[in-house]
């Protein structure tokens, strides 16, 4: 089993005719992802990599009622609109790859999605992959391998680095969720931990955090308060980051005394989460906790 995406996932790509959209449509198709439709307003009737393009999501859903997931590559100025459209079209899962969406807009569509029971991954994220089944994202598929460890991460390339180290050590992944680097993500660490908790295909979880906000601290509280049964190992990036500086991601900033790596690491360790000093140590920590 996996979470969020699997062989049943049927995808519509919003912004399919753009440079990013068409490039990753090709990459996802070659990974085996079932992409049934694309949407770009005004480009209805075209095809991209053999995928039919529609003017709006509603139309795509009418033609392909099996659609349940959207991935959004729409530029930041128009991305919110694309998210609302996908929510209103009745899709279950929306993966927002777009970086640079104003946080006021994100707060609103994240809230709207919640009210409508829709899951949002991102924005500003690499997407979701269940190795061997479906890739709804921009990650290089070959660094991942099928297995029984879930990954949830605020970063992109660092996730690839850690997944690659795991794969090399023979530890495969059930699902990897890149929740994104923005201050207000649609899906939080706790949401992801809950998904993995209910997934009988996941034995342990790797949590890849970074400076900014208190999502790691809240995850730690959740783990201890809920008596989380599955072992969790973690890495937190940014221990050498100075306060008040945004480290690449919109959400990676220590502000108003909140969000430094040292306190996140401390809180995670206090609840029994093994925290790696270097990304390369994740596989050995996993071996240790999985043996128990």
């Amino acid at each position, binding site marked *: 089993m996996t979470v969020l995406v699997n062989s049943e996932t049927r995808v519509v790509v919003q912004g399919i005719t753009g440079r990013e959209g068409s*490039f990753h449509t090709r990459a996802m198709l070659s990974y085996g992802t079932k992409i049934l439709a694309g949407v770009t307003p005004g480009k209805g009737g075209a095809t991209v990599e053999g995928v039919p393009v529609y003017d709006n999501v509603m139309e795509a859903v009418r033609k392909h009622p099996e659609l349940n997931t959207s991935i959004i590559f729409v530029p*930041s*100025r128009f991305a919110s609109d694309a998210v609302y459209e996908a929510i209103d079209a009745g899709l279950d899962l929306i993966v927002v790859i777009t970086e*640079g*969406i*104003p*946080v*006021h*807009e*994100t*707060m*609103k569509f*994240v*809230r709207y999605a919640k*009210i409508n029971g829709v899951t949002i991954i991102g924005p500003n994220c690499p997407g979701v992959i269940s190795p061997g089944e479906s890739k709804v994202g*921009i990650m*290089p598929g070959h*660094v991942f391998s099928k297995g029984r460890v879930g990954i949830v*991460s*605020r*970063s*992109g*390339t*660092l*996730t*690839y*680095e850690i997944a*690659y180290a795991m794969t090399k050590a023979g530890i495969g992944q059930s699902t990897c969720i890149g929740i994104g*680097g923005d*201050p*207000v993500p649609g899906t939080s660490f706790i949401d992801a931990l809950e998904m993995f908790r209910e997934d009988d295909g996941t034995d342990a979880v790797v949590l*890849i955090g*970074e*400076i900014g*906000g*208190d*999502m790691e601290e*809240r995850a730690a509280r959740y783990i201890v308060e809920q008596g989380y049964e599955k072992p969790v190992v973690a*890495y937190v*990036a*940014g*221990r*050498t*980051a*100075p306060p008040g*500086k*945004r*480290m*690449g*991601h*919109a*959400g*990676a900033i220590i502000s*108003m*005394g909140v969000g430094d*790596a040292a306190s996140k690491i401390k809180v995670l360790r206090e609840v029994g989460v093994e925290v790696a*000093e*270097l*990304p*390369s140590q994740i596989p050995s920590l996993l071996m240790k906790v999985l043996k128990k």
Partner: protein
Amino acid sequence: MKLYEYEAKNIFSQFGISVPRFKVVSTPEEARLAAEEIGGRVVVKAQVLVAGRGKAGGVKLADTPEEAYSYAKQMLGSEIKGERVGKVMITKAVDIERELYLSIIIDRSIGAPVILASPEGGVDIEELARTRPEKILKIVVDPLIGIRDYHARQAAKFLELSEQTLRKAQEATINLYRVFEYYSCELAEINPLALTPDGGLEAVDAKIILDDNALYKYPEFSSDFTRDLSYYEAEAKKMNFSYVELDGNIGILCNGAGLTMATMDSVYVLGGRPANFLDIGGGARADLVERAVTLLLQHPKTEVIFINILGGITRCDEVANGIVGALKKTGVSKKIVVRLKGTNEEEGRKILEENKIYVIEEMDEAAGKAVELGGRR
């Protein structure tokens, strides 16, 4: 992006929040004239973006226009915590009965705007949160609904005001939220909000932080997006890189924010000192890589450059060509450690090796090499 106090105050008064009369000047003579025009005691305030200017001598009370002149003369052109003072504000000194606090921020934990109100303003809100958390009221606002009157009534009531001032506080709360919403603020703060002896409320200080991602909506500010950045930070930002200055000697250049942070942390864990954080993002072509490497080659404190690339949409051959290009064009030679992994790794390695730059395959080993070359702390 942070706004200067005068910019925030201009916005506040446009939105109906009462602000003591002020003028912004850039010469001592203008300061004298402004003080004469405003009349009575004035405050001379350095317009800088760094926090804590008051303690650093950037806020002075002047009884006469001559005093305003001499304070302005002291401040203009001087540096406050490393930031040059280009403008000072001359503003009417307000009689203050009590200092209050009012702000709207984005609470990341709940993904919603939050109104913060306190009857004990004037101090740093973080400090107050630590010492007297019961003196801060936090009201969560649904981002889809926005502020309602009951929110404002709740906030105003907590400020311990007379009947007469209560209404003004409600209005100020609603107006502050309108500022927050209109300008896509990360923060809109009045601290202190002064209660005057006649029951008035005046925003004595004003702070607004705009969301960088929303800047394009505000052309009056977006052209000045590099205002609080150092030279290297500004240069990097113009090229759409993320760059942060650190105090070591090993330059860090990677693709992706998480990997860049993890790389600089690894250098630190292994005993070295990172000089900066330079994230070139995903999919950078050779010309962009070349500019990024050039930036580090020219950076005086960077002695060793550690390039760590995990190629997905970024191609290793493009990265290699960028590195070689930068070295050739600048003619500067620095110790360079390269780790390349992923898309077109072999091609990249070949290009570098032809130019006598050796590639290390694993991140830890590469970080170790960078530390060896840069020296341990």
